């Protein structure tokens, strides 16, 4: 168990032009913490993880595990265990041999290896498969073997790169919970890579959002949801995504089509009259109202019924925006497509404001 730190770590892939896959990453993961690295495809999540594992060179800065600077150490000296997306089980070894391989290499006594393998198998419900080869296992079982291989090592850090992406949706939800509770029980520092923001929000103590190799924000799931640091994080975290609109800023506030949304003085001051601002409203911060007063008339294009809720996709009559506005409505009284409804913001506090140029969060 140990704290993990990236110190301005960067990985640059050669080529023309060179790709800064991970750029100046500064991140500290506390002892025993479950940190999720999330971001769109190609944002450098895997690269960041592999840098810590020692499978990827570190071109600038360094990484630290515990008190040790491991920047130039080979993987085996770093005391980490990794779970790969493909699981990377040794196909010619049995489940038990797969799980015990690392211990065997460390010359740990056979009986001790057996004991630890059986213990982990018990934990993962794999006891009856110990003598099977991976090809005779289901996807979920293989995934658990990959976990088991990491657990028996009793490493100071677990690294997992999209370990659930090969499972079907139902199994993924189940396994997600299992991994989270297992981590809590073992208390091992864990870095978990995923591109699925639902996984990120449900599993991580903290979630680090990457975009183009740059860390955008690292916070608790709640904080990320409530106070995204910039428009990228705001749009990435939350499902369905936050409605983001860049609109003109007037003395009355932000002009979202026909309605003005009041903007705190702290935000307007110092901005010229014809400037723009990006406002963000989550689908759940909008609701349908009966009065036209102060509300936005919206033509309904599509209704996605989810049971308890429904997602209403609609456009204002004067809208020039490509993306529809999405509202989370009551599942029992969904509007019909083609209908015109009135939409209002539940609470002005729930509106997020971002700089139209830099995308940075403004004021509170």
């Amino acid at each position, binding site marked *: 168990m140990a704290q993990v730190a990236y110190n301005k770590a960067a990985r640059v892939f050669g080529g023309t032009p060179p790709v800064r896959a991970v750029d100046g990453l500064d991140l500290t993961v506390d002892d025993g913490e479950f940190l999720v690295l999330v971001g769109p495809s190609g944002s450098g999540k895997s690269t960041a993880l592999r840098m810590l*594992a020692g*499978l990827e060179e570190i071109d600038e800065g360094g990484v630290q595990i515990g008190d040790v600077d491991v920047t130039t150490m080979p*993987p*085996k000296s770093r005391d980490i265990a990794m779970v*790969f997306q*493909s699981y990377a089980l040794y*196909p*010619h070894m049995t489940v038990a041999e797969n799980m015990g*391989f690392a211990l065997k290499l460390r010359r740990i006594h056979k009986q001790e290896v057996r004991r630890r393998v059986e213990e982990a198998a018990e934990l993962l419900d794999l006891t009856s498969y110990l003598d099977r080869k991976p090809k005779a296992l289901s996807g979920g079982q293989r995934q658990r073997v990959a976990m088991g*291989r990491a657990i028996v090592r009793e490493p100071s850090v677990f690294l997992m790169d999209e370990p659930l992406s090969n499972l079907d949706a139902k199994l993924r939800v189940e396994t997600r919970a299992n991994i989270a509770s297992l981590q809590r029980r073992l208390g091992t520092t864990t870095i978990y890579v995923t591109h699925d923001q639902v996984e990120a929000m449900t599993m991580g103590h903290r979630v680090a959002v990457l975009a183009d190799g740059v860390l955008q924000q690292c916070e608790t799931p709640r904080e990320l949801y409530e106070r995204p640091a910039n428009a990228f994080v705001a749009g990435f975290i939350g499902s369905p995504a936050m409605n983001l609109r860049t609109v003109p800023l007037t003395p009355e506030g932000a002009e979202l089509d026909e309605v003005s949304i009041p903007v705190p003085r702290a935000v307007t001051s110092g901005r010229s009259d014809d400037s723009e601002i990006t406002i963000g409203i989550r689908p759940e911060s909008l609701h349908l109202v009966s009065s036209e007063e102060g509300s936005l008339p919206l033509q309904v294009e599509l209704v996605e019924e989810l049971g308890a809720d429904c997602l209403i996709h609609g456009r204002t009559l004067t809208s020039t925006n490509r993306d529809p506005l999405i509202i989370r409505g009551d599942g029992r009284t969904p509007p019909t497509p083609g209908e015109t409804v009135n939409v209002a913001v539940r609470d002005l506090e729930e509106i997020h404001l971002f700089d139209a140029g830099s995308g940075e969060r403004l004021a509170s």
Partner: protein
Amino acid sequence: MNVEAPDQRLSEKPRAEKPAEPAEAEGTRRKRKREGAAWVFLSPWLLGAAVLTLTPMLVSLYLSFTEYDLFTAPEWVGLDNYVHMFTEDPRYWRSAVNTLVYVLVAVPLQLAAALAAALALNSIGRGKGFYRSAFYAPSLLGASMSIALVWRALFNDGGTVDDLLSSFGVNMGGWVNQPGWALLVVALLTIWQFGAPMVIFLAGLQQIPGELYEAAEVDGAGRLRRFRSVTLPMLSPVLFFNLVLQTIQAFQVFTPAFTVSGGRGGPADSTLFYTLYLYDRGFTASHMGYASAMAWVLLVVIGIVTALLFRSSRSWVFYNDKG
């Protein structure tokens, strides 16, 4: 090995595991139709095999029970040829032992060279194509006489190697002329023709997922250990394929010995290989019946050896046909 038994069974029936067709009858009908098409496409080859291979083989089986000098009609002698071969012909046994020694020396060395070259090629990024061709070249040239002649020039009495060694005060005379060394020289000559197994090894190496090596590295396996615990088992089907192919070929070694010794298997019969002796009996001494019997014994021996290899493969060849 007991533990592996159920898996073995699994690995042997991958075809049966293909998703079952919903309409069983419809499925079999379509399958039969496809099989019919396969036979049609195979027919030219089957015809060729029947005319060009099977018929001569059957004729030679008949001839092996006769005395036949190519000019007069074959004369039935029963098992005489076989009896003579096994009990009264020391040169026959000499040729058999020579061939066996050759197989035991050349095949492992050739496969090792092929694997080493493939590993080297697999690890370099640039110029792979060039080196691949460069390593393959001896296999193409090796089949021709020229390379054997060059080897003769190198290893003969007064050849380059001899000269070189003499200048260091080692006086061996011609290498090919020494009964003790000649077989080894011929074996060496053929090791250079590792191009074909190398290319197959290379293809096998490129199939091994990189994540397996990374997993092993994280697990603490060094280079050698990764080779032993990842490369070799993952490569074992390819290794087995090459082993069978090269063994069968080695039993039939002919050209190098023929060129190096001028077709006589000298010096002192030390490079008298089985096929060379067979050729000698059949075409030089005109005992076609005897040569045919030799050919059939060779065929049976190769068959037995191949069967043994297949039997052994169950314990060391790993087929990863699923996942």
